[in-house]
């Protein structure tokens, strides 16, 4: 409860002002890239469920409505390096 995230545009805000956008898991394909089906399947479906630091995306829907990337420690909820 009341985990706070430092939005680069708006400042420190309770996590309830954000939508969780998932863990960053590799580069999504572009029209230029070649797709390895197995790697793409893993990227879309598999999650490591880390006990520790993970890099994740959050959308500040209650404020600036922009995405940010943060490193969060899933054990302590300490949020670092928000950009």
């Amino acid at each position, binding site marked *: 409860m009341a985990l706070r995230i430092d939005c680069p*545009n*708006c*400042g*420190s*805000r*309770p996590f*309830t*002002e954000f939508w969780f956008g998932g863990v960053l898991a590799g580069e999504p394909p572009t029209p230029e890239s070649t797709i390895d089906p197995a790697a793409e399947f893993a990227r879309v479906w598999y999650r490591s469920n880390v006990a520790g630091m993970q890099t994740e995306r959050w959308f500040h*829907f*209650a*404020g*600036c*409505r*922009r995405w940010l990337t943060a490193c969060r420690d899933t054990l302590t909820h300490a949020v670092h390096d928000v950009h």
Partner: protein
Amino acid sequence: MLEIRQSRSAIVSCLDERGVLDGMPDFAGAFKARTATDELWLIGPASSAGALLAHATDHLVRAGTSGLAVDVSDGWSVLTVQGAGTAQVWERFSENPIPAGRPAFVQGAVAAVPTKAVIFDSCIHFLIPAPLGYHLPHRILHGCADLAPRMADPADFVLYPTAIIASGGVL
């Protein structure tokens, strides 16, 4: 005494590169709010809507970076709260701190609604998404009876109202 009223406002959203927005010139009577690195809002009285849009468009066109200025006024409901007790209204409905410096621009949830606030001493303009604009006035009128709130008639947006009731709430 706490006075609240709907302020008829013009809100122009400007979308462009960071540098171009940094150079947006001022418009008398309007507030420049930086909502994101790529977005800037001009907030002024409804009576200046056309001029405000033209002012923004001119600047972006001159910059030549394919920016866009849009009048988004209809999507927002502006509630102006002023007088003693304004600070308490903020304390009750927002979990976020007010930064130093006046006026301050704060984006975040107010009474659980995504809101943008322009904050002066003893006066706050709350910019609320129109579909939820009914909620904050209701909460203030019914949940803050101890602050003696009063709903005044809607008026044209005034950035810093000079006729402020004797203030006691320094924000």
